[in-house]
């Protein structure tokens, strides 16, 4: 029987007020150790000011095979982009 530590996904927020971003994963016995290890592995050079860890088994994800139908609705709605609309130059910056 395997005594392997569970896998955690690590998310870090950098210095400049951006969202937490996935940076990698690691094994740890619990959340406290996962955070400590994440500090040592993923922030050795000032990469972050905040760490989230989530046990990998808790992450639900889209299936690659469904990519087409899943994202199709957004592909057919070009009017959601501001450049869809021609605004005369005289109107000025908008």
């Amino acid at each position, binding site marked *: 029987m395997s*005594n*392997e*530590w569970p896998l955690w996904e690590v998310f870090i927020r950098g210095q400049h007020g951006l969202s937490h971003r996935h940076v*990698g994963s690691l094994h740890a*016995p*619990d959340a406290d150790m996962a955070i400590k290890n994440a500090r040592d592995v993923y922030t050795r050079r000032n990469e972050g000011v905040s760490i989230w860890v989530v046990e990998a088994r808790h992450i639900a994800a889209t299936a*690659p095979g469904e990519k087409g139908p899943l994202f199709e609705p957004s592909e057919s709605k070009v009017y959601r982009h501001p450049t869809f609309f021609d605004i005369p130059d005289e109107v000025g910056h908008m």
Partner: protein
Amino acid sequence: MYAQMIKTARSGVKTRDEMTDQERAFQDKIDNDIKIEPRDWMPDDYRATLIRQIGQHAHSEVVGQLPEGNWITRAPTLERKAILLAKVQDEAGHGLYLYSAAETLGESRDELVRLLHEGRMKYSSIFNYPTLNWADIGAVGWLVDGAAIVNQVALQRTSYGPYSRAMIKICKEESFHARQGYHAIMKMAFGSPEQKRQAQDAVNRLWFPAIMMFGPNDSESTHSEQSMAWKIKVKSNDELRQQFVDQTIPQIEYLGLDLPDPGIRWNEERGHYDFSDPDWSEFFDVIKGNGPCNVDRMTARRKAWDDGEWVRDGLLAHAQKKSARTAAE
């Protein structure tokens, strides 16, 4: 390189006509530089080859800590000691990034470690050479990490997303390794005659093992074709080796050291340096397990794993007890 002599399971690259629709769609993605991601469909041999290559690369990072760790307690100054410690810690991190990438292919880290410890997986031949004097530590950072950078910069473009991302992260940290090494050996080369002698000795001993890191000559490299077609490998062994030689020779000359190979000379026509072939029988011998330090390295790895078992089990038991208690409340 850090991954040498990786066998692809199948011999020969399939033509488009021989491929199934699924295989053709997969090859199209690769040809269009679209990254393959963990849950995408991939041929079994692509997966198996990647696991072998990434696993061997990960093992190399971890085993690579041993020759340098050897000098942490004997570094000449506190600053050099702190720098070396930071570098060795980076190598552990690099191992982790790579094991993580391999895990996305469905092979657990513990399983890869087990295969290494049972002698069924390999690590780079370079780490089976001893680090005999302090100048070796400089030479390892400069030459060994320097060679690794040449390979890993190319591998940033590898087709498998998690491997490529691990390479990008590693390359960012790796240039610290090369520069601290060169800085250390500069001190030796510009120091007393005895220090200079040690620097020369380190370069003489590590030169050929360093250029062997790229693996056999292309003419002998039987496994490359499929890996190149799948962009698991991006440049050939000889291309990478030439690139490393070309960038390194001026660096040796700057140190005022003698070139470690009498065959080195600038070839105006090719626009590259010529150099002698290493003794490939030595390379194959080291790969087979008969290098100067193979036994030491594997003994140290197994001991670290076995000695750490109670810590791993204890922490897991503690975590399980704590979560059971929380659940009961």
